C-alpha cells in the first residue's frame, strides 16, 4: 500500500507487516520468500513505530510495524525502571505513570512516538541542555539481529551495538523491548515563564543566561527580517511542586482533510507570526500550565500535517556549534526569509553536549527547526541551506530528513563509517534498509 511518514513526503509503495509478538517478529526475518526467479531472499526492510519521523527514514519496500508490540513488561516502583515492548507509545507511558508521580526523562515535541522510534532517532527534548537525549536514559534494550538472534544491549553490555542502535535509525536491527529510567517529578504541571526577544542575538543570550532552567525552547519568527531577524518568544519551564499529578490531556481539534496548500503563504504566515510574537506577554509572571500544553502543543491538533496540503512538507532541522551559531542561523534565516519561505512554527533550542551514539543528532550548540511546505522551488533552497550549515560545522536531523545528499550526510556525520562497518559485519546491511539509508549510502 501507499505509505508516507509525518511530512507526507515522500510516498512509497510498501508491504506492511504487523507482528503480534516478539516471536512473530523474529519469524519474519527467518522466513524466506519465493521470488519470481525462484530464488529465496531474506527480509529487506525497516522497522516503523508510529510514523512520526518526517521523511523517509521509516519507509522501505517492507515495513515492520511495531504497533502490536505494545505491552508494558515490568515496572519497579522503587527505582522507576520501566521495561516495555518497542511499540509502546510515550503517550501510553505518560498516561499510566504521570498520575503516579513519574515522568519520562526526555520527551520530544509529540508524545505519539513509540519507544523503539524514540531510541532509533535518539530524540531530544526541551531539557537537552541538562539531560541529553532519550538514548541516554535507556538502561538496556533487546535487539533482534539479522540472523534472528535477540541480543541484550546496554552501555556496558554489547556497548558498540548499543551506541550504534541508539540513534541508529533502525539500521542495526529491530528493537524488541527496552528498559528505560522514569523520573520522579514534584508535580505534573509546568510553571512557565515567557520571555520576548527582539532579535536572534538577544534570544541566544537569554538561552545562555537560563541554562539552569530545566526546560527551555523558543518559538522563532522565521519570516522577520532586518533588525527583527530571529525575534522570538522563549519559553522556560519547571515542573510545578504542588504534588498534583495528571496525565497530559488527550483529545482536542482535528484537521479532517488536506487543506488547500495555498492558504499557507508568506502573507498568511507573516501575519500569524507577527500576531503571535506581539501577543501580550508578562515576562516576570510565572504561568502554571498543563504538561501537555507545554511539551506537546501540536498534539492537541490531530493530523496537523494536513495543513500543508496534499504534497506535504519538509521539516528542516539543523544544529550548529555554539561558536558559529549566530552567524549560521542568521544566514539561514536571511536566505529563507528572502525566498519568502518558512512557516508559523520554527523552533530554536540550545543543546548541551553530544553523546557517544554514532548517528545521534545533537551536538553542543543551537538547533533550529523550520517547516517548509513542499513545492518544487524548495529543494534548491534547502541545498543552499545545507552548505551554510555544513560550512559552519553543523548537521541535519536524520529523523526529519527526506532529501539531503549522501555527501552532505557523510561530511557531517563523521562516524557513519563505523556504523557501515558494523552493519556489514552483522549482515544488517542486507536486511535492514530504508529509503533514507539507501539515499545516504549507508
Amino acid at each position, binding site marked *: *500500500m501507499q505509505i508516507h511518514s509525518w511530512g507526507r513526503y515522500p510516498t512509497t509503495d510498501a508491504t506492511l507487516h*504487523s507482528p*503480534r*509478538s516478539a*516471536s512473530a517478529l523474529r519469524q519474519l526475518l527467518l522466513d524466506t520468500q519465493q521470488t519470481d526467479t525462484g530464488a529465496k531472499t531474506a527480509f529487506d526492510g525497516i522497522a516503523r513505530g508510529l510514523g512520526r519521523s518526517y521523511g523517509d527514514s521509516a519507509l522501505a519496500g517492507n515495513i515492520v510495524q511495531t504497533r*502490536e508490540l505494545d*505491552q*508494558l*513488561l*515490568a*515496572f519497579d516502583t522503587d527505582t522507576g525502571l520501566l521495561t516495555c515492548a518497542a511499540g509502546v507509545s510515550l503517550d501510553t507511558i505518560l498516561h*499510566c505513570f504521570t498520575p503516579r508521580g513519574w515522568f519520562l526523562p526526555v520527551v520530544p515535541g509529540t508524545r505519539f512516538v513509540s519507544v523503539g522510534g524514540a531510541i532509533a532517532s535518539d530524540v531530544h527534548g526541551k531539557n537537552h541542555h541538562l539531560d541529553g537525549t532519550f538514548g541516554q536514559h535507556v538502561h538496556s534494550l533487546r535487539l533482534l539481529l539479522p540472523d534472528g538472534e535477540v541480543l541484550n544491549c546496554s552501555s556496558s553490555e554489547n556497548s558498540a551495538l548499543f551506541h550504534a542502535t541508539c540513534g541508529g535509525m533502525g539500521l542495526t536491527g529491530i528493537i524488541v523491548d527496552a528498559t528505560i529510567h522514569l523520573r520522579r517529578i514534584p508535580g505534573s504541571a509546568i510553571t512557565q515563564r515567557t520571555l520576548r526577544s527582539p532579535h536572534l542575538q538577544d534570544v541566544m543570550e537569554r538561552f545562555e543566561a537560563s541554562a539552569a532552567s530545566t526546560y527551555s525552547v523558543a518559538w522563532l519568527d522565521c519570516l522577520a527580517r532586518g533588525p527583527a531577524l530571529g525575534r522570538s518568544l522563549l519559553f522556560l519551564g519547571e515542573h510545578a511542586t504542588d504534588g498534583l499529578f495528571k496525565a497530559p490531556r488527550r483529545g482536542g481539534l482535528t484537521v479532517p482533510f488536506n487543506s488547500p496548500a495555498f492558504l499557507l503563504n508568506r502573507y498568511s504566515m507573516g501575519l500569524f507570526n507577527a500576531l503571535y510574537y506581539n501577543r501580550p506577554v508578562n515576562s516576570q509572571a510565572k504561568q502554571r500550565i498543563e504538561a501537555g500544553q507545554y511539551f506537546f502543543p501540536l498534539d492537541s491538533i490531530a493530523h496537523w500535517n494536513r495543513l500543508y496540503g496534499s504534497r506535504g512538507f519538509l521539516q528542516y532541522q539543523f544544529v550548529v556549534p555554539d561558536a558559529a551559531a549566530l552567524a549560521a542561523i542568521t544566514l539561514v534565516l536571511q536566505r529563507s526569509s528572502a525566498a519568502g519561505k518558512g512557516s508559523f512554527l520554527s523552533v530554536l533550542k540550545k543543546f548541551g553536549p553530544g553523546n557517544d551514539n554514532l548517528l545521534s543528532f545533537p551536538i553542543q550548540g543551537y538547533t533550529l527547526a523550520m517547516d517548509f511546505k513542499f513545492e518544487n522551488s524548495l529543494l534548491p533552497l534547502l541545498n543552499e541551506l545545507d552548505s551554510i550549515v555544513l560550512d559552519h560545522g553543523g548537521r541535519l536531523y536524520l529523523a526529519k530528513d527526506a532529501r539531503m545528499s549522501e555527501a552532505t550526510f557523510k561530511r557531517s556525520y563523521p562516524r557513519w563509517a563505523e556504523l557501515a562497518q558494523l552493519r556489514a559485519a552483522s549482515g544488517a546491511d542486507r536486511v535492514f534498509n530504508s529509503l533514507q539509508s539507501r539515499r545516504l549510502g549507508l
Partner: protein
Amino acid sequence: MKNILVIGANSAIARAVSRLYAEEHCRLFLLSRDAEQLALQKQDLQIRGASEVDCSAFDANNFSVHEAVIDQVLDTFGSIDLAFICHGSLSNQAQCEDNFDSALQEFNTNALSVISLLTCLARHMSVQRSGCIAVITSVAGDRGRQSNFVYGSAKAMVSTYLQGLRGRLFKSQVDVIDIRPGFVDTPMTHTLKKGGPLWSSPEKVAHCIVDGIRKRKHTIYAPGYWRLIMLVVRSIPEFLFKRLKL
C-alpha cells in the same frame, strides 16, 4: 464494576477494553488460546493498574470444556460482574460458499461457541441475580450482504439469541448487551483494504464499548454513527439491495 471475565482476550478490541478496565483497578480473568500472549497481557494489565489478573488458555471451539472453564472463573472470582465475549474470526466468504466444512467452522467459532458459553453464563448469572453479559457481534449481522453473509449470519444468530436472552435475564437483573462494531483496524481484518473515514482504531471502539456498558445500553454500535449507517442499509428495498455488490 469489579470482576470481569474476558473471553477471546487476545483480540485487539479485547486488549484495548481490558486496558481501560485495568485503569479502573478491576479484577480481570482472561481466556484465550495463546498462552504466551496471555502471560504478557497479564503483566501489562497489572502494571496498568488491574487489581488482579488471572488467565487460562482456552479454545472456544472446544465446547466440552466451557462449563468447566466458567466454573473455574467462578471459583476464582466468586461472582462475575461483567462477562465480555469477544472471540471470533473473519470468514473467507468465497471458501465458505464452496465448502460447507469451512462454513461450519465459522459458525462454530462465531456463533455456536458463543451460544454455548452464554448458556453456561446465563445459568450462573441468573442465580447470582446481578451482572452484565456483553458480546461482540457485528454490523455485518444487521443485513445479509453477498460479500460476507456467512460471517454476517453467524453474527446475526448471536444478536437474535441475545435479544431473547435479554428478556429472559431481565427479571434476574442481569443486563445483556449486544456490541456491534463497524470496520475496526485489527489483525482480524488484515486482508481488507483499510483507511478512510469508516475505519476506527481498536482503542476508539474500546472507549465506545466501555462507555456503552457503563450506561447499560442494549445495543452498542461502535462507533455510534454505525447505527445510522445500518439504518440506511437496512431500509434499502430488497429488489434494489440484491443488485448491489455490497
